[in-house]
């Protein structure tokens, strides 16, 4: 039996602005098992990054958790982190049980602070002996393919790919169970992208992290390491399935469109051609009624405008939010 590591139930995370509310994550439920890599895929503005903030309860105004619960398994029992304040979650779980590599983390390093200083900061804030953690950092640097000598260098002396690996090494020093990586490869060239994917897989194989959530807009990248994939559109999960099954036969029309817009250097692509999803992404302040994809969907029916399809398991390991596949179950 697979153990659940993180559970999100009917979560709604909105950006509450003065005049409007942006429904960036709207009624989303999913679970992450121990030992798996989950890919979260969607276009810009689909709520991927907001979802990652939700996972580790990084709720900073105007982002607010309006409804729903988030559970994280810590020492064998579920903690309802959505009921705690951001500070409490940060103090108790960040870095130890859950860690995040935010988008463009490699550019967030202060150029005048040595890499080793970041390790010392981490030790201080978690009450660990700095010298011990530095020793550990040297080993972890080797594991991600960096010379430990780089610890005594300044961030600007490292290349982009090296900085990204250094950030991952430091972020995982306390062996967190869950690693959330938000677009870790998008700023890197393809050779460094592959190295980084390898590092992530190695961290999991070595048991340093148990599960990885990989957020990206690039299906071809996430496909390389993910076991399951969540496809987001306009703040909703539209499909959640085993990676290989989605690739073989996507169920949601949006997933199909997204897959057919990917260009990779493979002979299949030239025969398949490229498809276009008409229209523009949905407005999250005032989203369309019913299924949020219906104005762009080639198969839209009357019911799609009126009712919102729920994310329902249509076959083993496959969940989709689309009336095309739900038949009697959805009605």
């Amino acid at each position, binding site marked *: 039996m697979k153990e659940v590591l993180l559970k999100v139930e009917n979560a709604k995370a909105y950006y509450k602005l003065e005049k409007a509310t942006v429904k960036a994550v709207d009624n989303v439920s999913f679970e992450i098992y121990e030992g798996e890599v989950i890919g979260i895929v969607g*276009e*810009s503005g689909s709520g991927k990054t907001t979802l990652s903030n939700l996972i580790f309860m990084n709720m900073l105004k105007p982002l607010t958790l309006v409804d729903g619960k988030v559970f994280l398994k810590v020492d064998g029992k579920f903690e309802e982190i959505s009921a705690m304040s951001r500070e409490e979650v940060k103090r108790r779980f960040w870095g130890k049980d859950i860690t995040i590599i935010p988008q463009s983390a490699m550019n967030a390093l202060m150029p005048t602070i040595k890499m080793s200083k970041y390790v010392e900061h981490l030790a201080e804030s978690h009450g660990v002996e700095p010298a011990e953690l530095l020793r550990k950092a040297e080993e972890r640097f080797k594991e991600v393919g960096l010379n430990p000598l780089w610890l005594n260098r300044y961030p600007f002396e490292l290349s982009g790919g090296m900085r990204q690996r250094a950030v991952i090494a430091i972020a995982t020093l306390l062996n967190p169970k869950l690693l959330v990586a938000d677009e870790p490869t998008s700023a890197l*060239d*393809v*050779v460094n*992208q*592959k190295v980084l*994917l*390898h590092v992530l*897989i190695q961290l999991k194989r070595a048991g340093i992290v148990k599960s990885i959530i990989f957020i990206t*807009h*690039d*299906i*071809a*990248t996430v*496909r*390389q*390491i993910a076991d399951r994939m969540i496809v987001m559109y306009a703040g909703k999960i539209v499909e959640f399935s085993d990676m290989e099954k989605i*690739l073989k036969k996507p169920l949601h029309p949006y997933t199909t*469109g*997204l*897959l*057919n*817009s*990917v*260009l*990779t*250097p*493979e*002979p*299949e*692509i*030239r025969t398949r051609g*490229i*498809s*276009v*999803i008409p229209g*523009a*992404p949905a407005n999250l302040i005032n989203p369309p009624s019913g299924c949020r994809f219906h104005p762009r969907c080639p198969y839209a029916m009357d019911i799609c405008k009126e009712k919102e399809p729920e994310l329902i398991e249509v076959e083993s390991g496959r969940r989709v939010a689309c009336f095309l596949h739900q038949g009697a179950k959805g009605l």
Partner: protein
Amino acid sequence: MFSPPGGERIMSRLVVENLTKTFAIGFFSKRYIHAVKNVSFEVKEREIVSLVGESGSGKTTTAKMILRLFPPTSGRIVFEGKDIWRDIKKQEDLKWLRRKVHAVFQDPFASYNPFYPVERTLWQAVNLMEKKPQSKKEGLEMIKEALFKVGIDPKDVLGKYPHQISGGQKQRIMIARCWILRPLLIVADEPTSMIDASSRGGIIKLLEELREEQGTSIIFITHDLGLAYYVSDNILVMKDGEVVEGGHPDKVVLQPSHEYTKLLVESVPKLYRKLEGL
């Protein structure tokens, strides 16, 4: 490349010969950076050629010299029989070049002046035309027609400012310019890299339509091997300012011969297969 019936030779639209660009850095002790080294290639009528390479490979420098934005250190760029750096002396000739060679850049946000409505770039194109329209009304009709061609309802963009429309729309309006000016060559520098996946296909299709209907030649500058593989008739792989490998996409991508191309092809994530050695 195909050859038309009757054995007619396909004209070369652009010939680049031994193009070199060296930047000098420093005042007293000079350092030299060889951004482009001895690059030669040819673009024929209705041909799509891609320059593929990573950041710093010299692909954008090459594009800028072709667009006559800065001069090469040595070498020649011959467009429609004219050496664009030696034969163009008069303002009129330069105008001709600006009409016939069109650029579409990576960042659609940087191509517009935020203080003016977006149709200003289209009016600029109209004013650059050889046969200018007789009246403002006629000009506006041409603009509307061009917008329809690129799949935009003129109502949605006319009178709007750049921040009010999406990146995909901005890039489409840049291509609408091509329907007004009917250039012979389009230099597209990463035209899709800042656009969402679902709209990217639309931009590529628009450029392909231009090629079909007007016989436009296109140079794609990109780091995206997948895009180059899909659209091109000819791929040139650049590394450190040099063209290391070139040829038909199937040859370059499926049977690469140069070490660098091999590394690149091996590293690019694939949709239908997993990478080796992960």
